[in-house]
């Protein structure tokens, strides 16, 4: 997924210009969720809301399925994706668990132990 970026660091997505272009409409959707009225409209019909923002079918599926890894792969910026997670009551540690194949508790425990040391 980091094929277009200038360098590769294992296990590390780099949010570069191509990625930002790919995720542009999806990230706009995430940013809109800052406002309560948009969260309500999203909640009332998630699919329609995705269509209104012009998401690709893959992005739409990733959002509806809460496939957090796919959202990142499809151009989501973690700061934007997190807006959706917050709406769902999910923490950044929960997302960290998803990205690393751990439960939230395991991820929190790893952080408390001083963090993870590498990929």
């Amino acid at each position, binding site marked *: 997924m980091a094929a277009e970026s200038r360098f590769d660091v294992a296990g590390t997505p780099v949010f570069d210009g191509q990625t930002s272009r790919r995720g542009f409409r999806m990230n706009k959707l995430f940013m809109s969720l800052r406002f309560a009225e948009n969260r309500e409209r999203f909640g009332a019909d998630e699919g329609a809301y995705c269509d209104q923002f012009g998401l690709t079918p893959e992005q739409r599926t990733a959002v509806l399925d809460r496939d957090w890894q796919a959202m990142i792969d499809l151009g989501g910026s973690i700061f934007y994706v997190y807006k959706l997670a917050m709406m769902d009551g999910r923490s950044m540690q929960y997302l960290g668990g998803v990205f690393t194949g751990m439960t939230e508790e395991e991820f929190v425990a790893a952080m408390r132990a001083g*963090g993870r040391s590498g990929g």
Partner: protein
Amino acid sequence: MAEVIWGLATSHVPSIGAAMDRGKTEDPNWKALFDGYRPAREWLAEHKPDVAIVIYNDHANGIDLDIVPTFGIGTADRYDVADEGFGRRPVPDVIGDPELSLHLLESLVDEGFDLTVFQELDVDHGFTVPLSVWTPDPGDSWPCPVVPLLVNVIQYPQPTAARCYALGQALGRAIASYGKDVKVGILGTGGMSHQLAGARAGFINAEFDRMFMEAIESDPAKLAALSREELIREAGSEGIEMIMWLIMRGAMNERVRKVHSHYFVPASNTAAGLALFDNRP
């Protein structure tokens, strides 16, 4: 002639603000962090500047991805605290200093820094958490007016560390040439090592952080030589935001005196660092 009296480097992790807003600073998970802040806060309370400059990045709250400026400066007389999704932090809105902003803008553009001017800007945790680290109980208002200086650290290509350090040096000259005799505090925010997404999420590199904390005082040019790739490899994809410390450092004297520093893992997913420097000769 204005004078930089201190520089404060600090993480701006949202959960630090949340812990304060929810009265959890004495909780076992948080007590060590806030205890570690105390000596810096006490010194800062005794050294109040007339105006502060906060170097920070926005996190999908004040600006969107349709327009991504490499460097920006606010010129407003007021910056509202952003609602990041679940209500705004219960802290005061920010009073700006347009006169200083416009002076800095003109000086920096004259020196060849291509700033973007923000006449309207809501500020998010990247801005307000450092203010809370500095001033835990602001009451109705922060200690002084504040000028925001924005940096793109989210979307590659970020400005290089060298460019950030050079901007800081020009910022120092711009402050020195200001017509008003004011004392300035500078906050460089972000970091330390962390990565939020990818298989390496949760990455912390305490060794690199300690090197960075040491070198920001004694050898900032060494840090300015780091490439984006080195920063991302060593500090994580979001740890690159430590380039903002270099802007603060560049605006200070070659020699500074460390008042206090503190390092704490983790503040949620992030290694939290604080370093306070006295800039007076």
